[in-house]
């Protein structure tokens, strides 16, 4: 009798709350739609388990009703109860409708996680590009939930990844499925130190941490919502519904007043989410963590020229650590640096599978023991490089004008993504370029022509050093005007070479086999030497001279000089000189262009 009474009572109260919710129009509120991940009334979550109503994915009202119903009529009272699975929905409804008669539930799992995370604040983390991989400029962003500990190593990262095992799938299939939603994305929580091992140590990426001004209360609110996505599936789309995009939902759920997703309509480039966070005013301060590579380069700097190769000899076991520790000519601090660099280098080698574990352990132990015996020394200090948050944004619109062979000429161009060597390198990894769909038209003598139409262009000029013997490479597919014929022709090229540099500038030498598809197929091999003077943050000078040998026997010289000035984060001024040798129907001629360009980035 009592039971029947209770059920009737609860049903009645659920009914009243639903009525009240309807009066308050709660189903249309921003927060409710955030919790459901609704875009234009339809949820992006592709998992039935996320909804109580049959039409919950597309009907916010019925989902609200059924959620109230489920919360008040729990059938289980443990981790699987509605309240435990949807703590953010519960908290919000409780607050909005003053619900006091929730059934008692015990959320052991959630409480355990909450206790361990002890959420206090949130940091947006951006691992920047890694060397020789300009594609990684598209990078990754994730959220870190900071605990009450001072040490950030004890915080947790919210990870979002495609639920697929790359080792067990055909690589091409994997990529295609990743792009077009063939996999489910899945969330996980990982200790931050594990993420550091992955990005900082293994992938050699400098890491930028942007501390957000979310309060403890907002952080917990966010965690409650993240928890609701535990075990739910959504299709993973590389360009749109990717790792960075989903973080935006979480931040908005933490503080509904911020509108981050509105900054994006098409693809989401992870660094752009940082720009959006900055624009919304939620970034408090930032912190830079150098990668293992950056640390090793610093050691190269600190170790005297004459000892520079010693760490390599130690790691290769060509000499023993006592050859250094007992050497009376080397001063103590240099000894410390040498041994520290050796340990770093050894770890680097090991992480690249270039040394067997047995050998690694033996050397690691011997070297660290030797280093410990030398006592405390100077701490290495790595200067914080230009912050990516100050770097130019992805979309470039350019206007230009100049003179080509005595005739005036105008230029107009647009490029949706992302960065080329002539753009300001402020905040970008030195010597990297990645461009998608770079279009430029020229207008001269009442005639518009294609100046360039790049589909994809990647350049990676990785400076060689004692510790890192990197190769440089570049590739381009698209139309340009560097072919012997007058008009733009389709080029495909992949080249390799070397680059060296210091803090003033870097130089490079490249060999580029290439083909043009004009009216017919022609191939050539090009050799280029270039110099990029980039010491100052607000300007750079780029020179490149190229000689090409065509299969027809024709030889061509190309010269390109540009001087750029960074006026502000998203405005750049560029002066260019172009020299091209051309050959049309056996007449050979030269083309000289001087131009000035204004580049704006969005």
């Amino acid at each position, binding site marked *: 009798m009592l039971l029947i009474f209770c059920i009737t009572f609860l049903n009645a109260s659920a009914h009243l709350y639903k009525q009240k919710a309807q009066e308050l129009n709660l189903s249309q509120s921003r927060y409710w739609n955030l919790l459901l991940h609704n875009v234009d009334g339809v949820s992006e979550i592709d998992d039935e388990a996320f909804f109580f109503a049959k039409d919950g994915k597309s009907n916010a009202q019925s989902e609200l009703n059924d959620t109230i119903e489920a919360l008040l009529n729990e059938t289980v009272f443990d981790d699987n109860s509605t309240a435990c699975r949807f703590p953010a929905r519960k908290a919000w409804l409780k607050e909005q409708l003053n619900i006091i008669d929730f059934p008692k539930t015990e959320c052991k*799992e959630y409480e355990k*996680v909450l206790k361990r*995370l002890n959420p206090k604040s949130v940091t947006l983390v951006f*691992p920047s590009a890694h060397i*020789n*991989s300009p*594609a990684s400029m*598209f*990078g990754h962003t994730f959220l870190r939930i900071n605990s009450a500990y*001072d*040490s950030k190593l*004890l915080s947790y990262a919210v*990870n979002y*990844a*495609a639920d*697929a*095992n*790359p*080792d067990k*799938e055909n*690589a091409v299939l*994997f*990529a295609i499925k*990743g*792009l077009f939603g063939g996999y489910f994305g*899945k*969330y*996980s*929580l990982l*200790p931050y*130190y594990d993420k550091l*091992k*992955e990005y900082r*140590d293994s992938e050699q990426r400098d890491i930028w941490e942007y501390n957000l001004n979310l309060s403890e209360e907002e952080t917990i609110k966010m965690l409650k919502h993240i*928890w609701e996505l*535990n*075990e739910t599936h959504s299709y993973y789309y*590389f*360009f749109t519904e990717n*790792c960075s995009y989903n973080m935006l939902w979480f931040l908005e759920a933490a503080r509904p007043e911020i509108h981050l997703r509105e900054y994006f309509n098409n693809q989401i480039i992870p660094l752009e989410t940082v720009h959006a966070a900055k624009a919304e005013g939620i970034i408090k301060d930032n912190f830079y963590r150098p990668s293992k590579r950056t640390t090793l380069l610093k050691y190269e700097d600190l170790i005297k020229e004459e000892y520079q190769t010693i760490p390599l000899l130690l790691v290769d076991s060509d000499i023993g650590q006592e050859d250094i520790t007992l050497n009376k000519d080397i001063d103590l601090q240099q000894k*410390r640096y040498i041994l520290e660099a050796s*340990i770093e280098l050894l*770890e680097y080698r*090991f*992480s*690249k599978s270039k040394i067997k574990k047995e050998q*690694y*352990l033996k050397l*690691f*132990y011997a*070297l*660290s*023991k030797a*280093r*410990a015996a030398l*006592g*405390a020394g100077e701490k290495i200090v790595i200067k914080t490089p230009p912050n990516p948050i100050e770097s130019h944004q992805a979309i470039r619109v350019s206007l230009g004008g100049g003179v080509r062979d005595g005739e005036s000429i105008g230029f107009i161009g647009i490029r949706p993504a992302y960065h080329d060597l002539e753009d300001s390198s402020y905040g970008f990894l030195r010597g990297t370029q990645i461009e998608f*769909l770079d279009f430029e038209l020229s207008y001269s003598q009442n005639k518009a022509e294609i100046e360039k139409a790049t*589909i994809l262009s990647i350049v*990676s000029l990785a400076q060689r050093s004692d510790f890192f013997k990197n190769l440089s490479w570049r590739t381009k597919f698209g139309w340009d005007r560097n072919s012997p014929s007058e008009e733009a022709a389709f080029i495909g090229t992949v080249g390799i070479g070397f680059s060296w540099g210091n803090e003033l500038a870097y130089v490079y030498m490249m060999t580029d086999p290439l083909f043009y598809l004009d009216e017919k197929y022609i191939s050539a091999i090009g050799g280029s030497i270039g110099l990029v003077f980039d010491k100052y943050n607000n300007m750079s000078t780029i020179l490149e001279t190229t000689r090409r040998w065509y299969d027809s026997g024709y030889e061509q010289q190309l010269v390109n000089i540009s001087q750029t000035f960074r006026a502000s984060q998203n405005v750049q001024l560029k002066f260019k000189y172009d020299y091209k040798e051309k050959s049309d129907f056996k007449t050979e001629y030269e083309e000289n262009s001087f131009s000035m360009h204004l580049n704006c980035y969005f």
Partner: protein
Amino acid sequence: MKKFLVSIAAVVALSSSVMAGVNSQTGCGLGSMIIKDNSTAVLLALQATTNGTSGNQTFGITSGTLGCQKTKFVMNEQAQEFVASNMDQLAKEIAVGHGECIETLAELLAVSDKVAFAASLQENYNSIYTSQNATMSDVLDNISATTL
């Protein structure tokens, strides 16, 4: 068309990263770091972050000490977990005499004078790491015995 072309480019970038084959060697001793197979250097060079995961990761808090020998001295679980997961980094920092892992450990063990703690760890390196096969429990027990 635009989307298609971008996609092609990304297929190239993506498929290469797939071949990178990360294998995380977890353990309780030294030498358990992320190893990347470097065999496909050219493809690897194009690498983008795909964020593929091999499925095992969950939302729960998993203990990093599974399968590790427990410490003899009473020690908080999180300290054990931390040390087991950061063996190499910690050893390196102790050898050098400072670092974030040492500071973290100090915080977990409620050591107030971090500078003295780091110096003492360095001084006792040989008794903390008695061999290259030292495991988490050896390290923590030896730290308890020598520096705490």
